[in-house]
């Protein structure tokens, strides 16, 4: 039994640990697992004995769009995930903190570098259990033959070889698609390419219009300042030294208010001068190293930045996609536990709880024979595709990406309306046309121009889906705010599901699973 895991962040590593109990596991990652986006998680991980309160907060914070069966599973298993990390050596601070939208202090943390501490512990565990970890592998395609996935085809960037990775079960854990936006807290690798490849291969996408913005990132830099400084008492003020928003409100509300303030020409700052910052050494370091300020004495200039992709590859509560043998977990997936607005501290919980579930579920996959001809066929196709890119003359892929990021930030961002969205759709179509002529210099070894051309195709297609989904949702809910439809509508308490039909998208509606908290 072979399990392939694509992505070495917290979800992928946790899945690999579980799957290694029963299967031969290979984890491939485009960058060393320790450099994953997960390493940037600051604030902490939510878990509580009183799982019902945690679940209710998650559902209310997500404006009732969460699938409640998934929320229940997450919240019930959260504490055992934290205990397990403690057994593996993570030392959480003695006190707990909370994120906006939580009624109780249920957030476990390691200073303000919780993700980094967890990922090192998980990496050691994965090594201990014999998981084969291969870095510098960029997965180019999934070997899906109509209904079933037999693994993937990837580029070994170090050796410059295109290889096949056969598997009985494949788990995608490749993170979000934040890089579609100009200002984002996401790592450079988070372009969502595997989300696009999964879609192209027949997997469904869900809730793509829900793109979360974090209210407080360092201005012009997109570097995160954890929300927990606000729940510990930080103020948000404008250039007139006035507070203008309740700092303890959830992310969607605070982001919008800050954005409006910036639109009206004022600057916005985070004021932490009155706080001890004892538990925030990284924030002090980040302010010193990147903004050249001392947050104990000076105001921190901030702006909202894209932060989290709530939508993604649609899965059930066992992390299965609609393609046999293909699983997805973590930010690339959409269960959907976060609803229309993710609470801080819930993404690590999701990655750990469902990482374990995905690893286990993948092992229970009936080990059908791997169809090697599908893999070979995909490899040949991929080689041809790359050869085609080398043949093209235009060298404009980085410029197109930049244009796309600007379009998305401007017209598909924090405040949306039909005109802007339609304009974005038109712009994206033009950029797609331009991208068809984009080429790259020859060579397979760490060729970042080639990577950019390949990823750009995915980014443009995901961007189009986000816009179509945002157009379709004629209401405002959580992070999806339409100024032309500013109210929440009960009739829109539905998920929007995208299915790839060749050149066309089929959009389905699906009811939200309500099993616990009624509206």
């Amino acid at each position, binding site marked *: 039994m072979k399990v392939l895991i694509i992505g070495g962040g917290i979800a992928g590593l946790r899945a690999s640990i579980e799957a290694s109990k029963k299967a031969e596991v290979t984890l491939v990652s485009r960058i060393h697992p320790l450099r*994953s986006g997960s390493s940037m998680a600051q604030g902490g991980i939510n878990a509580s004995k009183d799982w019902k309160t945690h679940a209710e907060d998650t559902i209310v914070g997500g404006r009732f769009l969460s699938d409640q069966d998934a929320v229940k599973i997450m919240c019930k298993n959260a504490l055992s995930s934290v205990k397990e990390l403690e*057994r*593996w050596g993570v030392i959480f601070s003695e006190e707990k903190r909370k994120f906006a939208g939580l009624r109780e202090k249920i957030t476990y943390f390691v200073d303000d570098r919780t993700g980094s501490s967890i990922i090192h512990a998980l990496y050691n*565990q994965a090594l201990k259990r014999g998981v084969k970890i291969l870095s510098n592998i960029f997965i180019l395609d999934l070997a899906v033959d109509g209904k079933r996935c037999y693994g993937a085809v990837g580029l070994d960037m170090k050796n410059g070889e295109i290889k096949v990775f056969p598997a009985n079960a494949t788990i995608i854990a490749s993170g979000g698609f934040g890089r579609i936006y100009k200002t984002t807290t996401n790592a450079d690798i988070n372009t969502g390419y595997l989300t696009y490849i999964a879609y192209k291969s027949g997997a469904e996408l869900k809730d793509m219009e829900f793109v979360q913005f974090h209210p407080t990132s360092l201005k012009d830099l997109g570097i995160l300042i954890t929300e927990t400084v606000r729940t510990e008492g930080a103020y948000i003020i404008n250039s007139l030294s006035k507070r203008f928003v309740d700092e303890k409100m959830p992310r969607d509300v605070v982001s919008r208010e800050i954005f409006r303030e910036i639109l009206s020409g004022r600057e916005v700052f985070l004021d932490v001068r009155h706080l001890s910052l004892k538990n925030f050494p*990284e924030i002090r370091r980040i302010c010193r190293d990147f903004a050249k300020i001392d947050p104990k004495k000076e105001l921190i200039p901030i702006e909202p930045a894209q932060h989290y992709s709530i939508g993604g590859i649609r899965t059930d509560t066992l992390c299965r996609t609609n393609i046999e043998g293909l699983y997805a977990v973590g930010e690339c997936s959409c269960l959907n536990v976060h609803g229309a607005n993710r609470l801080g501290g819930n993404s690590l919980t999701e990655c750990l709880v469902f990482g374990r579930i995905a690893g286990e579920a993948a092992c229970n996959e009936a080990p059908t024979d791997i169809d090697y001809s599908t893999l070979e066929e995909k490899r040949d196709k991929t080689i041809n595709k790359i050869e085609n890119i080398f043949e093209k003359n235009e060298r404009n892929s980085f410029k197109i990406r*930049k244009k796309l990021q600007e379009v998305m930030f401007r017209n598909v961002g924090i405040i949306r309306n039909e005109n802007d969205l339609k304009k974005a759709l038109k712009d994206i179509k033009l950029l797609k046309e331009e991208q068809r002529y984009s080429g790259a210099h020859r060579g397979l*070894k*760490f060729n970042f121009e080639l990577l950019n051309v390949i990823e750009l195709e995915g980014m443009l297609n995901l961007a189009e889906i986000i816009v179509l989904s945002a157009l379709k949702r004629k209401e405002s809910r959580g992070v999806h705010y339409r100024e032309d439809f500013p109210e929440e509508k009960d009739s829109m308490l539905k998920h929007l599901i995208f299915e790839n039909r060749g050149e066309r998208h089929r959009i389905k509606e699906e009811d939200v699973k309500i099993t616990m908290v009624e509206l």
Partner: protein
Amino acid sequence: MRIKILRFSDGKKFYKEYEVPNLRTVLEALIYIRENIDPTLAFNYSCRSGICGACAVKIDDNARLACKTGLRDGMKIEPIDGFKIVKDLIIDDDEFFDIYRKIGLYTEINDKKSIDREIKRKINVFDRCILCLICVSSCNVCREYCFEGFLSPAIIARAYRLFLDERNVFREKILESIKNGVDACRFYYACTRNCPRGVAPSKAIKEFKSILKNPKPL
């Protein structure tokens, strides 16, 4: 501003100068060059905020994280020392992580035991290590012994972080697996001086040396 970068591909090594605008950091300059001047330039980065450890390079002869180093006119950027170069500024860390794996830095906490607050505080400092390999590349001993006799400041610092936890059932095993790999250190302190995370690998080495000299029952 003009900066000079050591390029390496297809067995050829050469310096190339680039004219870049007035940008904040070395990383921003590298990105600018790749996206606007020379798309063949290879370097790694991920978080841009000094926590992932992907962008270590040698800047004016000192290993640094490119993301948090301010850009100055006339800077010289090279790959970090002590590793095989794959392409331009990208080094091959497979051998390092292979040794890291073989050493077996395991943890399993016996939760019936408690942990001292002072030890917790010590662990917290060593836990800040992100394995960016700047200490390894700065270490003269590492370069000579190529990991064979000396495990490197990074591995010893990580080992020490796990060893410090008295509840770890693998403590003895960790001590056993590093015991022949710490002695070569000659305390140049380059590791501690250059660490971008404020970790002191030399302190870990010193403590391990003294524990190994006077073994006490764990």
